């Protein structure tokens, strides 16, 4: 059972465009929602994260939008650049026996063409 559903599986965007990746979850106990970026041959790296007490968080060209009632959150990449080409994972943190466990989405492969 996939607890964090991510779409699309792949995304092609032209340089300067907006990339949007969506995630949905079911578990209302989730209280932390990070996005990780993974380049080929590398491990994922934390990009940006949000907690449910805010509806939006922006860091540079990257913005997370969070809709608590719909149990959805999304990553927006403004002015997408070829260097943004990577696989993006949304995730959610579930408190389990006082230990958080991060559950990842299935990933979105983003390709930005010049």
């Amino acid at each position, binding site marked *: 059972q996939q607890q964090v559903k991510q779409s699309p599986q792949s995304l092609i965007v032209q340089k300067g465009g907006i990339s949007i990746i969506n995630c949905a979850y079911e578990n209302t106990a989730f209280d932390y929602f990070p996005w990780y970026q993974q380049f080929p041959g*590398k*491990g994922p*790296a934390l990009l940006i994260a949000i907690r449910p007490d805010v509806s939006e968080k922006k860091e540079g060209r990257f913005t997370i939008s969070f809709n608590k009632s719909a149990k959805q959150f999304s990553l927006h990449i403004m002015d997408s650049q070829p260097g943004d080409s990577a696989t993006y*994972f949304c995730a959610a943190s579930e408190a389990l026996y006082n*230990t*958080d*466990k991060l559950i*990842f989405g*299935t*990933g979105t492969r983003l390709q930005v063409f010049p």
Partner: protein
Amino acid sequence: DTAVSQTPKYLVTQMGNDKSIKCEQNLGHDTMYWYKQDSKKFLKIMFSYNNKELIINETVPNRFSPKSPDKAHLNLHINSLELGDSAVYFCASSPWEDTNEKLFFGSGTQLSVL
């Protein structure tokens, strides 16, 4: 200096063999993890250790045995390798106060079982 380093980067072996993957972090973190990324890029936690103590043990076959000689090292030993074990294995660490909220991943070990 690499923050989370794991060796080897590539591991090709025959079915039935026993192999180990080593992981070291120089970030001073208390918590270390092993994640498995399958061919579809799906990332799933396998184990979590805090200060050498096992915290999370997902439903992983007991052929997989993590060993933490000290809080900077978490090695993964796999017995009787099977074809289905082929995947990329990532070691990660995080500070205890942030647990899963800020994971630092290694570059991965690509395991191919023939």
